[in-house]
């Protein structure tokens, strides 16, 4: 049979020599290895106090974006929900009434926008599908809750704070 890689090593099946049978040299070797590990840098991160560095393309929990005037960018086109392979996104569209121009950017907006974080696989397809730059994935992660319904994030959980209100 042809070898798949050149890394295969033949197994040494020669009988144990006298030093092998003594076990003590092998044990000493093993003890030396564990002793070295005693002083190595630890792989553990003490989580709530320390956090790991994320890569720039990390995909965490979603946020719904606003434009520079603080209006919701989402127009409830439903492309994110269509793109979602896990079918985690539900939305209901509504028409913008006169006098709501400072709230919503387009004539149509999402009255209800829900992401089930237990279904979400954090693939980022929604982010790619969005034509209005309305949905982004943040660097926040590890949502926790005592109940399943707590993992269905609605608009209040997803919308980023209004930049105009924050600056005041």
């Amino acid at each position: 049979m042809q070898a798949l890689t050149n890394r295969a090593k033949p197994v040494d099946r020669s009988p144990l020599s006298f030093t092998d049978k003594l076990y003590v040299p092998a044990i000493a070797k093993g003890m030396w290895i564990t002793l070295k590990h005693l002083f190595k840098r630890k792989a553990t991160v003490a989580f709530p106090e320390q956090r790991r560095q994320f890569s720039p393309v990390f995909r965490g929990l979603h946020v719904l974006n606003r434009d520079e005037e603080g209006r919701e960018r989402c127009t409830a086109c439903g492309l994110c929900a269509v793109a979602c392979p896990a079918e985690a996104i539900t939305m209901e569209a509504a028409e913008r009434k006169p006098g709501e121009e400072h709230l919503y950017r387009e004539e149509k907006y999402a009255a209800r926008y829900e992401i089930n974080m237990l279904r979400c696989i954090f693939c980022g397809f929604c982010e790619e599908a969005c034509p209005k730059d309305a949905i982004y994935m943040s660097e926040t992660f590890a949502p926790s809750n005592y109940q399943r319904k707590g993992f269905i994030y609605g608009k209040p959980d997803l919308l980023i704070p209004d930049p105009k209100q924050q600056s005041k």
Partner: protein
Amino acid sequence: MTLLSIDWFFILEKILLISAVLVLSLVVAMYSTWGERKVAAWIQDRLGPNRAGPMGLLQPLADGGKLFFKEEIIPTNSNRFLFILGPSIAMLVACMTSAVIPWGDTLTIAGRTVSLQVADVNIGILFIFGVLSVGVYGIMIGGWASNNKYSLLASVRAASQIISYELPMGLALIALLMLTGTLSLKEIVEQQRHDLWNVVYQPLGFFIFLVTAFAETNRAPFDLPEAENELNGGYHLEYSSMKLGFYLFAEYINMFVSSALMATMYFGGYAFPGMDSLGVSPNLLTMLGFLALFVKILVFIFFFMWVRWTIPRFRYDQLMRLGWRVMIPLALANMLITGAIVLARQH
């Protein structure tokens, strides 16, 4: 009337000493559990317990509290009396051995000379062997009373393992006794104080003693009585709450006591090099000696843990072959060579 005169100070002194030794071994055993988890973690590149208190130092208290508050279950088909007797014997025997270990030289308090040894019996080593052999009854009785096949198998394993390894241990000690000519641990230490440590004269004997000590305390790589993957936890399978805690605790006390024994018999006990040329007051010297012994014990305890997290468990037939076909012949050869040399030097 003279027959009834009781030296009350002597009794008080001994009671205080016994309490101190007991508290010491319990605290060391308690913190051995913490140390074990820390050493295991460090060897595996982890951090170990660090949530309860600074560096996780309150972890043993949390573990102990948890064990006390756990529900206590005594199986219906178990023998109730023996079921409770098992962990009691294990704990009692583990605490008893520390009585003959000299924890230090003498202290002079208000004109009284107080020996830091609970009982300087002239058969110290024999006493330890006697008590150690009773230790297996704790495991045997517990495993038998549980009325569970896994527990029974584990206790059968424990019994045959301890009997098999007691022989080479005894033979290794006989060589030491030929050398020192005494069974009293105090005298063995005093001889090492003015001479080289016994490990120099008895390297092979020490090695055999070390390996058999691992087997006697049921520590890895000889922890077959509690082989989880084969026996579901071993002889303490049916135990819960503090009775389980006693079994686990007894193991750590045993580890402490056998470390103390090795330090005493082969590594000079409370004696340390340059002890008599230090020129400090005898009381201070005794305390320093105790510290030296304590450091030696901690090094041995660390060694026990280090080995546990390095070497995989033996198979049962390998264990028996090692005991009977390697350890006993080696110990016999060591005994013969020592005997020949001792005889040659006398002439």
